[in-house]
């Protein structure tokens, strides 16, 4: 478990004695003209794992994915696949990787089946083998009955499912998914999460899953890396990361409205380490040893705020992110 970028991560420790890692990113930095998109980032992915890469938009997740999948070269650092650097020789990795880009990487004027044929052919799949594989994948992603329809007639969720499907045609060993559920309805989102889980459980497929939805990562992933502004700010298993807040409580206040006076005074309480304000909710991170309920109730009275509820929340990854960065993940 690691708490901040100054004292990076367990990953570096783990692969030194872990052995079976498929992919390792070692001290990766990627600089563009003006900005440093990724700073000294390290991670490893073991065979059969689902690893989550969490962070808000602009954290550097997509850059990490592009470097990991050999699409762009890092400014410094190395990427290893089965202990061999892929920077000069990416071919072995490319054979076993399937990528699901954040955008819908499909031809809108072609049908689902035609798209599958196109992406299958570029992997040299042909004839009956290709057709069998297409039918199998379409069945998995639940689009068998829409296979003849043009992609442009699909809903956002269906396009996302097909986007995943075409990455699975050549039976990749590792699936890299860059925010695969952005902008879709809850049903499609569930469908995708279940599909990923099934692929991992039934086929042992290794998955790198990036998202800024904490609950998805919590549901799917064995281990998690959290990024912010190009830095790795925490990593480990879900439990390990939540332990970061073992000495703190997350308190959720609910009311119909807030006023500035209340919020200012609330923030002024010395024991409040972090505060996140939403329309009808305020999330506070405070030390576990201290009871601030009476103080909050007194402040509400004083500033004419009618509290509807006050309760201590189960620690979530969202709370950890808030704690580490002072910001909500979706800011």
């Amino acid at each position: 478990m690691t708490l901040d970028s100054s004292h990076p991560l367990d990953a570096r420790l783990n692969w030194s004695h872990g052995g079976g890692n498929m992919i390792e990113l070692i001290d990766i930095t990627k600089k563009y003209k003006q900005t440093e998109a990724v700073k000294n980032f390290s991670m490893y992915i073991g065979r059969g794992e689902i690893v989550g890469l969490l962070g808000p938009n602009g954290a550097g997740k997509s850059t990490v994915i592009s470097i990991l999948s050999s699409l762009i070269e890092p400014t410094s650092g190395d990427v290893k696949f089965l202990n061999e650097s892929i920077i000069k020789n990416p071919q072995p990795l490319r054979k076993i990787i399937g990528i699901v880009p954040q955008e819908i990487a499909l031809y809108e004027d072609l049908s689902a089946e035609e798209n599958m044929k196109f992406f299958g052919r570029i992997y040299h799949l042909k004839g009956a083998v290709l057709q069998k594989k297409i039918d199998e994948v379409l069945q998995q992603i639940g689009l068998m009955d829409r296979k003849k329809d043009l992609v442009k007639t699909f809903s956002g969720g269906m396009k996302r499912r097909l986007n995943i499907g075409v990455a699975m045609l050549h039976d990749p060993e590792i699936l890299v998914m860059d925010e695969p559920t952005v902008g879709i309805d809850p049903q499609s989102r569930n469908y995708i999460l279940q599909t990923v889980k099934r692929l991992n459980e039934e086929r042992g497929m290794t998955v790198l899953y990036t998202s800024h939805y904490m609950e998805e990562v919590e549901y799917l992933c064995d281990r998690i890396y959290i990024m912010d502004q190009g830095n790795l700010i925490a990593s480990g298993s879900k439990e390990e990361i939540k332990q970061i807040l073992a000495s703190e409580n997350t308190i959720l206040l609910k009311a119909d409205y807030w006023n500035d006076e209340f919020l200012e005074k609330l923030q002024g309480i010395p024991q409040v380490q972090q505060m996140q304000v939403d329309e009808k909710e305020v999330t506070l991170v405070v030390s576990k040893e201290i009871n601030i309920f009476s103080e909050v109730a007194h402040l509400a009275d004083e500033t004419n705020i009618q509290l509807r509820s006050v309760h201590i929340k189960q620690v979530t990854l969202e709370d950890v992110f808030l704690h580490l960065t002072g910001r909500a993940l979706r800011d």
Partner: protein
Amino acid sequence: MKGILLAKFTSFIRGPWLFLIFTGMSIVFTLIIGNIGHGFDRIGVPITGDESIKNSAIGKALEENDVYDFAWREKDALEETVRRGNAEAGIILEEDGYEMIVGIESPNVRLIEQTVAELYAKIFREEAVLGLFAGNEEQKDKFLSDYHEAMENPVFTIENQTFQSAESFIFDRGLHSIFGFTLFFVIFTIFYSVMPILIEKKEGIWDRMILSPLKKWEMYIGNLVYSFIEGYLQILVIFFAFRFLFDMDFHGKFGEILLIMLAYTFTIVSLAIFVTAIVKNTQQFNAALPIVAVSMAMIGGAFWPIEIVQSEFLLALSKINPLTYGMQALNDLVIYQEPFEVVMMPVSILILMGVVFMGVGIHLMEKRHLQ
């Protein structure tokens, strides 16, 4: 590569609208501005004279002239037309001569006068010859037809040729419009067929292909061959339409024109790749396309003959414009009837430009993609 072509052509068949619009616009603009199907524009020349001259051989011959549109007017109207500058000259016809009122001194005025003078000379000569004839009426007809035949088939012929200088040029509005609008509108078709590369890169289709066993050159060739075929198909449709629907014979150079167009299409595909490599997104591409296409057409001689452009700066710019060489090759071949070896010069420049644009364009694209 076959897969890329198949996907592109399937998309094309499902949405050929841009292609059809630009092909249609080429044909319609050429028909309207090139005045195709109405012959060429005849220069209007007002003439006046009394009834006897109207019904005379001179009057009839002027009415039937193919080059100038001699139109009968009252004398006052004729003078007014010339005075206002609506005609370069007018002619007052009489039995034994003519009087010419000149409004604008131009090469046309001399040619008009030459036409009328030749006509009078011919009639006077015929009358003089008939005046010397001493036979009866029956023999007179025979004599006249023998005379006409002798005039049409002389013992020897004299051919006049004029020197061609840099300042002189021939302008055939119909052919110029076909060439100009075809070369202009095909730029849009080709650019819009290359633009999906930008979208495919942004959306990750390109990344998927890079990670697949597909070779980089196959990706480029697949895309470029498709753009080339779509652009060339548009050119074929336009030229075949004018050749077979509007019966233009292109002075017998139809096959050679299509050969030249192969080089031009290649160069424009390369230019499209170059522009695609420079711009960052489709918005920039959409802004750059009309600027590139219209300025190329303006300084390359697609809208008007480049010979009338005086600015040294614009003429210098036209030297790095593929459209200039496309027009030059077509004009040299069809209008100036130059041999194909002469036409090879602008064609070679086109191919060279194509190679340079393609090389630099692909290099820039690759560089940006790796960053």
